[in-house]
């Protein structure tokens, strides 16, 4: 009798819900069993020291469980896993906690989206943040919520901005110290974007960084007349964080209107830029603009990954990014200084990026009324699909589109709550488009291997010490690759397009891999022998 009680106690302690203080997130890489932020840690390397599943046995990987949300629309979440419990969101305002070994539900939360809400990005959601005993999520109409991790009950709700102006939100918040950092969508609706920090305990706003400066502020002179008021600069993806520098790195979206630039002459800071912000105050430390005066919708919302690289014989703290404009950038993350910019695919818009980081433009790349063909196309280049880095190979793994578009332009009329594009882009008829998963040396930009997807694909990547890279394609294949060679070692057709990045974690003695597909959350493991 005593023995069986001990056994029950031992099993339950394995799955005890422990709080997640800031110190735990700081050291997320030291507990690879868990996945504690949208990126897995603060640096966004998306690498895990887990090798139970490896190049030798990955061919045996199989579905362990499926969780059906029943929610239509793109399933873009990245789950969190904390001590055997998985937390994730789905479209339409849902959040769930499930047993990470079985997929059995522990609780469900549903945010009631107001019927009349303007939803600039539909009801898509990319996931949660956790801090202490609270989870944080944003809503399609631009609210921030704190939920009690053990029940899913609402603790507080804050409104980021009036929804009538088309502000929405899709990203997974980032919890840093005692704050929750979020940003808005609406870059296609003429919003003026911002990044906000909220007190994790109370929901009170701690600071706001306007991604588009007002007239008279530094950078305000990069906007014609009052065009800054509708200047876009949505901050729709999660940023990264360097605790030693206490800096947040956040990608800023396209200027508004997207395609039509004549009404907003100037560089249009800080759109299509990376900003480094003081995490305590939201004050700008530096910025780097990838695409000044963007007219191709090339948001800079790709992942700003933080790496420590040997750079010309010297250790350097860098931030690397495969941008939507088809260039791979390496910046010093203390100063924002450009160290390297090199194209990773076919592109027609820039002759080169000069030493200061400014593109030298090719003629003919501006949108016209009759249409101008430009590579990459509107979606990029790379995009928000997460890259990864494996320190064992020293390689950076990312997905991008090989596609060109014809960009048409016409003067748009701003109407509050309506799309504000300034015309559109579309693919060339009968011109092939495809997707690529690529491994490059981030110190040189040199390509080490490539794997071609039949269609441009929105799946992100994840790296493990098992020598594997996981990714997925537009046709629904979830795949594992040899990190060194790019050889495809395993695949499964999941039956729906894959539009987010996988995670891996451990519960007890088993390693799992999770990937959302369609309305289902699929979790894989090796057979239990």
């Amino acid at each position: 009798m005593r023995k069986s009680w001990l056994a029950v106690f031992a099993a339950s302690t394995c799955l005890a819900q422990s709080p997640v203080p800031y110190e735990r997130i700081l050291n997320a890489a030291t507990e690879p069993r868990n996945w504690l932020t949208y990126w897995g840690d603060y640096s966004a390397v998306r690498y895990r020291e887990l090798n139970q599943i490896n190049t030798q046995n990955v061919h045996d990987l199989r579905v362990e469980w499926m969780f059906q949300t029943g929610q239509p629309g793109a399933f873009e979440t990245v789950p969190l896993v904390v001590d055997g419990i998985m937390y994730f969101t789905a479209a339409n305002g849902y959040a769930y906690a499930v047993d990470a070994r079985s997929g059995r539900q522990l609780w469900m939360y549903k945010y009631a989206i107001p019927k009349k809400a303007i939803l600039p990005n539909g009801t898509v959601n990319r996931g949660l943040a956790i801090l202490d005993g609270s989870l944080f999520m944003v809503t399609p109409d631009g609210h921030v919520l704190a939920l009690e991790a053990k029940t899913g009950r609402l603790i507080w709700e804050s409104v980021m901005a009036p929804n009538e102006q088309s502000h929405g939100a899709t990203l997974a918040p980032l919890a840093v110290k005692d704050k929750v950092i979020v940003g808005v969508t609406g870059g296609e609706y003429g919003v003026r974007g911002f990044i906000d920090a909220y007190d994790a305990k109370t929901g009170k706003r701690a600071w706001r960084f306007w991604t588009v400066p007002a007239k008279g502020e530094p950078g305000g002179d990069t906007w014609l007349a009052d065009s800054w008021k509708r200047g876009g600069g949505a901050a729709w993806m999660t940023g990264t964080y360097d605790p030693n520098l206490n800096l947040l790195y956040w990608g800023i979206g396209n200027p508004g209107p997207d395609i039509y630039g004549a009404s907003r002459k100037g560089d249009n800071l800080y759109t299509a830029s990376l900003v480094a912000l003081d995490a305590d105050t939201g004050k700008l430390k530096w910025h780097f603009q990838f695409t000044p005066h963007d007219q191709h919708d090339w948001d800079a919302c790709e992942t700003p990954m933080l790496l420590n690289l040997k750079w010309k014989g010297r250790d350097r703290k860098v931030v690397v990014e495969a941008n939507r404009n088809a260039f791979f950038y390496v910046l010093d993350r203390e100063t924002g200084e450009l160290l390297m910019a090199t194209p990773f695919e076919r592109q027609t818009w820039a002759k080169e990026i000069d030493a200061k980081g400014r593109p030298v433009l090719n003629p003919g790349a501006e949108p016209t009324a009759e249409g101008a063909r430009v590579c990459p196309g509107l979606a990029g280049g790379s995009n928000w699909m997460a890259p990864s880095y494996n320190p064992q190979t020293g390689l950076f793994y990312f997905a991008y589109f090989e596609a060109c578009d014809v960009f048409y332009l016409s003067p748009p009329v701003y109407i509050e709550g309506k799309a504000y594009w300034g015309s559109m882009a579309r693919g060339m008829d009968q011109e092939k488009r495809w997707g690529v998963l690529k491994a490059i040396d981030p110190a040189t930009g040199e390509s080490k291997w490539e794997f071609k997807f039949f269609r441009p694909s929105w799946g992100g990547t994840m790296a493990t010490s098992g020598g594997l890279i996981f990714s997925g394609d537009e046709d629904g294949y979830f795949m594992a690759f040899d990190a060194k060679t790019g050889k495809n070692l395993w695949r499964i057709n999941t039956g729906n397009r894959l539009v987010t990045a996988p995670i891996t974690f451990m519960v007890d003695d088993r390693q799992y891999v999770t990937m959302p597909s369609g309305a289902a959350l699929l979790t894989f493991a090796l057979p239990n022998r």
Partner: protein
Amino acid sequence: MKLVILLIPVALSAQIEQGRAVFRSNCAFCHGGDARGGRGPNLVSAPLTHGESDDAIKTVIREGVPGTSMPAFSDFTPEDFADLVSYLRSLSQGVNRQVHIAGDVAKGRQVYLQNGCAGCHRVGTEGSVFGPDLSRIGAARSVEYIRESIVNPSADVPDEYQGVTVTTNDGRSVTGTRINEDTFSVQLRDVSQRFHMFQKNQLREVKDAEKSLMPAYGALSKADLENLVAYLNSLRGASQKTDLVNKGAGIK
């Protein structure tokens, strides 16, 4: 009062210009840059199959035409619809919507049968599904497009009828239209209407045909060609609203 009179034409011309911009980026790649037809019907001088009222035109744009390649532009704003209609009206102002056909429909049907067109195409329930179904081709395509498709079929090959030749690892080669393809597999339909399905690791090569799989009928006499065009233009069967089969749609 004068001011108002002046403003109306200005506003209208702005609306037409806006409509032209919407048309260029959303419609022109099918209906042609001048809206006189391409892969999609001529919207300027041909009769409009689904009605000529503003509401009928808006409904077609908003809802698409099920069973055809006309998609639904459901996210257009009311302003977009109004602008597009203004633009189209400005093009067809004073135009008598009718198609001038020199050929003879009955003779054209004979040309169709004698040249073996039914070996690849279907009209109603007759013929093969290897090539595009022609049951409503007269409603779906301009006369110019139909004529060009006969004499130079490679001028425009719809994605759904892209020819592909695969070569297996043991050297066998199969040609057909691409029904579906993804990173790891490809599915073809050959001229005998059989499906061929391959995993790409069984294949040495998957090669897209550079030309249409349809032979060019440039050698037809002028009379035969015009008769054939007249016959094809007369084919205006209903779209398959209740029996929609989305070929090779995969998992989109």
